[in-house]
């Protein structure tokens, strides 16, 4: 049975997998929408709930109050869980990345458009003929560059 407590613990773990901050002021992955996407990712994982449950149980068996630990201890504990349960932990990491970066509001923070890439795409100006001539001039000047047979 999945509980609210599971939800809370999962989001605390997601906070550590992709933490907030940095120069780009990125949000952490520990939000309800990411957690829900991870748990429902059956199109991309055989059994996401099972993988997440293994990780949650391993965390709880090592620390009754994961959220109450100082940040360095939370990370250290997760590294132990990763070492003990590599397959489910790696699956959780993979699904977290998928859920987090599939949110269109995240992409612009990294310089990528939020929009679907069709039909708009990106405006990229073609280099002028003069620029291409200048750039390729040294290559042309060296002459034939293939083996003549």
């Amino acid at each position, binding site marked *: 049975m999945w509980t609210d407590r599971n939800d809370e613990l999962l989001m605390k773990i997601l906070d*550590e*997998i*992709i*933490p907030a*901050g*940095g*120069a*780009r002021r*990125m949000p952490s992955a520990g939000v309800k929408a990411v957690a829900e996407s991870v748990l429902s990712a059956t*199109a*991309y994982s055989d059994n996401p709930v099972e993988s997440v449950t293994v990780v949650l149980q391993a965390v709880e068996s090592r620390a009754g109050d994961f959220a109450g630990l100082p940040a360095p201890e939370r*990370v250290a504990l*997760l590294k132990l869980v990763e070492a003990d349960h590599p397959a489910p932990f*790696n699956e959780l*990491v*993979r699904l*977290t*990345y*998928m859920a987090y*970066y*599939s*949110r*269109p509001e*995240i*992409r612009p923070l*990294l*310089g*990528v458009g*939020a*929009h*679907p*890439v*069709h*039909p*708009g*795409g*990106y*405006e*990229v*100006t*073609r*280099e002028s003929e003069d620029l*291409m001539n200048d*750039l*390729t001039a*040294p*290559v*042309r000047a*060296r*002459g*034939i*560059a*293939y*083996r*003549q*047979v």
Partner: protein
Amino acid sequence: MSMSNEPVDVLIIGAGASGAAIAWSLLETRMRILCLEQGDHLHDKEFPSRREDYELSRYGAFSCDPNVRNLKQDYPINSEQSCITPVNWNGVGGSTVNFLGHWPRMKPSDFKTRTLDGVAEDWPVDYETLEPFYDLNDENTGVSGLGGNPGYPDYSPPLPPIPIGRLGRTLANGFNQLGWHWWPSDVAILSEDRDGRQKCVNAGTCDLGCAAGAKGGTNFTYWPILENAGVELRTNARVREIIVDQETGFATGVLYHDADGQLHVQKAELVIVACNGVGTPRLLLNSKSSLFPEGIANRSGLVGKNLMFHPLTGVAGVFDEPMLGHEGPMACSILSQEFYETDPERGFVRGYGLHSGRSTTPMTFALGGYGIDSPIPWGEEHREIMDNIYPYLAGLTVVTEDLPEECNSVTLDPELTDSDGIPAPRITYRLGDNTRKMLRHGQEKAKELLRAAGAKSVIAKGSDEVWWRAGWHQMGTCRMGADPETSVVNGWGRSHDVRNLFIVDGSIFVTSGAVNPTPTIQALALYIGDRIKTNIATLFD
């Protein structure tokens, strides 16, 4: 229960790059042409790039890996004995639906490796013979590029080049500083509107199918013309085996399954196989009879042998300004062939290309990159990599020639089958020593280039690590040749053993070159079509 369909003159198996090209070539004969395709058309609304979460589809229904997609039209591939797994698309357009559109031709030396370098075999055709068919196919496809490349005998693509972008210009300056060859990539991507197709909008998701039709998949180039001209394209039709008259030794047609799994007989005068380097040997090996107990057209024993891929590895540089690598066709900016031809001082024969693809979108980068299952670290290191490395990356891909070895093969898996119960292919493949040397050399040269271009740091994986999902280019498994003992088809694609059976795809390559094979596959298909027309009166003699 078997049902019978009206006989046709020409039956083509597979609606991808080569099946479409040869159908186009044979149009003028006015023969009745039927193409059987195991997949379906991809409709406009199905392109993931029209959705906000478009990146997700790379890991599900639009993965390049059929073992991940696992769609009804896909067949599983057992790659447990291989360091590279084949990737593809099954549907109208074949793998040109999700290929990346990089379009370099093979070079004259690629066709003569035995004579020039003492390795592999010479092809029974040469560059000069194929050149007009390269040109014709470039016109039909709408190829963009810059004429005058000193790396080739002179030719000019029909359309001007696509933008090489900040990333391409940065790397080009590095190549110029070192005095190495480079050139804007030839691409099967429109730089201008053409024939009702929209020019490239720089979406950067070529692998998810091009919703604009800018990329020259045969679903946008050849097939609309062919269907308008009366070629019948029967989709959701999976060929089970080619049937043969046990007395005459001629192919009489095929058995195929429809969408409901029903088995049909389709008779034909001429059978053309266009399923590429894994699908074609799989079909031939599955076509057993008393006349061909080891599979049709396999008296040489070479069907499925000599499998070649293009092993790849990547090196990336971190620059001071954002490289905007997500803007523009993902595999195509510039190409260096400085190390393409044999130089004995390098310690290996043949060579490789340095391909400047662009970078990718955040999710794919975080998961390890395109074609790689190796997510970047989690935690604070994740934050650091995504914030301060990802936007500033420009990379080079080392694409090596792969020499043919009989031990690299496609066979039939004894247990695994597709949804119609047809035995699946099993891949046995390892890297050769020559390839490993090339990969190591290429990594070092790529690092040198990136530093010359101004990278403040360089990131590379181990020299023996190749991309797992690098099996786009599947070649050599039914190779051409004059001698029936050492080849499967003759110099114009006709089976040595079955005189009305032709093969026109990448399986007939004798060597792989170190370039993307689709332009050569289609040039060969057009050439074979031309030979069929020329020899029509004595075609089966």
